[in-house]
C-alpha cells in the first residue's frame, strides 16, 4: 500500500469530519466540483468518455516527467464532478504502481460509498477502474 495515497485519503477523511450533516457534506462536494480544473475541451473526446447512464465522466491520463501519472477529469453532473475531484486528489500525481495497488476506502469512511455502487451508474465506479487500469498500463511500460 502506498503511503502517499493513504495519507491523502486520511486527509480527506479528516476534512469531512467537519461536516456531520449530509447537507454540508454535499455542499462541500459541490464546492469541490466547482473548483475542479476544467478539463481541456480537446480531451473531451469519446475515447476519454465513461458513459454512465446517470451522468458522464471524462478521464485522461498522462505521465509527468517525474514518472507520475497525472489525471484530468470532468463530469456533467456537479456532485459526480466533486467526487471525481476527490478521486483525482487521491490518485493523481502518484506512481503507476501506487495507483495500481491502491485501496480506496475514503468514500466509505465519509459515508458516500453508495456513489461507488454499480447500481448508481454515474460512471464513477468505471472511472476508478479506468484509473487503476492506467496505473497498470503505465507500470508495465
Amino acid at each position, binding site marked *: 500500500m502506498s503511503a502517499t495515497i493513504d495519507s491523502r485519503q486520511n486527509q480527506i477523511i479528516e476534512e469531512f469530519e467537519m461536516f456531520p450533516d*449530509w*447537507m454540508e457534506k*454535499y*455542499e462541500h462536494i*459541490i464546492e469541490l466540483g466547482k473548483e475542479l480544473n476544467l478539463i481541456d475541451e480537446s480531451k473531451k473526446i469519446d475515447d476519454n468518455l465513461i458513459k454512465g*447512464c*446517470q*451522468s*458522464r465522466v471524462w478521464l485522461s491520463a498522462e505521465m509527468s516527467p517525474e514518472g507520475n501519472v497525472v489525471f484530468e477529469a470532468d463530469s*456533467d*453532473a*456537479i*456532485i*459526480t464532478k466533486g467526487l471525481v475531484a476527490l478521486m483525482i486528489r487521491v490518485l493523481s500525481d502518484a506512481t503507476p504502481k501506487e495507483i495500481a495497488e491502491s485501496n480506496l476506502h475514503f468514500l466509505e469512511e465519509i459515508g458516500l460509498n453508495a456513489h461507488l455502487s454499480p447500481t448508481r*451508474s*454515474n460512471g464513477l465506479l468505471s472511472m476508478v477502474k479506468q484509473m487503476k487500469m492506467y496505473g497498470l498500463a503505465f507500470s508495465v511500460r
Partner: protein
Amino acid sequence: MKRNAAYDLNALRREFPILDREVYGHPLVYLDSAASAQKPRVVIEAQREYEAHFHSNIHRGVHTLATQATEAYEGVRSKLTEHINAARREEIIFTSGTTDSINLVAGTWGRANLNSGDVVALTRLEHHSNIVPWQILAKEKGFDIVVIEIDEDGSLCEESLKAALSRSPKLLCVSHVSNTLGTVNDVTRITAQAHEVGAVVLVDGAQAVPHKKIDVRDIGCDFYAASGHKMYGPSGVGFLYGKAELLEEMPPWKGGGEMIQTVSFEEETTFNVPPYKFEAGTPHLSGVIGLGAALDWINSVGLDKIAEHEEALIKYASERLSEIEGMRLIGTSKDKASVVSFLVDGTHPSDIGTILDQLGVAVRTGHHCTEPIMNKLGIPGTVRASFAAYSTFEEVDALVAGVERAVKMLR
C-alpha cells in the same frame, strides 16, 4: 388544487405497507411508480396465501392441488380477458413482462413476417423495449425502420405519422402512454389509420394499464403488451394480448413443456393451441395469482377515480414546479398521464435526484430507457416524478420543496 372527496386517500395508503417507510429519517415520498408501482397488501397476501396453501405445478395434474392451482391460474386469464375487454380468453398470453411480450411478437410474428424491403414504423417515444427487439430483428432480416417523430410538446407529429404510413409499414409500434413525457397517444385513431394501409399494430401499454381503462377491442390493435409490476401487481409477470387470428397463425417462440401437443424424435413434433402454444415451461404461478389480486384491487378503487386523482396531481405538480426559476417541463402535450419530467437550468438531473433522495423523495433521473427522446431534445436526461393511486398532494409539495433546496445547493 382539486381534491376528490369521494377518494379516501388516507385509507387507501394504509393498504400499502411500504408507504410507512422512512428514508434518511424522512417519511418516504415515493414518486417512482412509473418504474414500478408499490403493491397493496391484498396483492402481497394473495401470493403468500397461494404459496403457503395452494402451490403446485399446473395443467396435466390429476391431483387436487394441481387442479386448484390450475383453476386459480386460468381464472386470472378470464379476469384479465374481461378487464381489457378481449374477445376470448385464448387471446391472453402470460409473459414475464412487457419486454418479454414485445420480444415474443418480434420472435414469432416478426421473424415469420418481416423481410428485406419491409418497413416497420416506431415512434420516437418508444421505450427501449419497443425499439431494440425490432433493431435486432432488422439487422437479421434487413427490413427498414421508420421513425415517427415528436413535436416540441412531446406529442406525435401528425405529418411524420402520415409520412410513415405512406410507406405502407407492415407493423406499427406505438406506446399508449410515454413513460418519459407522459404523452397519451390516441391509439384508437392511430390503429385505424395504420389498418387502412394494412399495418399490424402493436401497442405498448406498460404505462397505460395502471392509469386508464383499456379496451383492446375499442382500440382495435392487434397486440397489446403490459407488465404486472407497473399495475400494483408482482414482478416477473405480464401479458400479451393478441388477436386470435394472428395468434393461431403465429409459429411458437420458446419451446418446452405445455406448448406442445406431441413431441417425438421420429415423427413431427406438434404444437398446442394458443395461448398455451406461447407459454412454454412452468409459468410464474404466484405472479399470475398476484396479478389477479391486483386487477381486483384496481377495480375495487375504480380506474376512473384513480385517473381523476392522478390528473389532479399532475396538474398540481406542473403548476407548482413551474414556479421554480429556470424550470423546464419536458413533455407538455395536452393529454398526459402518469409522469411529470423536468429539468432545471444550470443543474444536472442526477444531482437533483441525489439531493432529493437525501430528503426521502424518490424520483427517477436519466434517460428512462428512452434515449432517442433525449437525443432528439438534446438533453442529458430528465428528473421524472411519477404518480399512482396512492400519491398525495403533500408529496408533490415535498417534491417541490426538495427541488428548490437542491437548486439552491447546486447553482
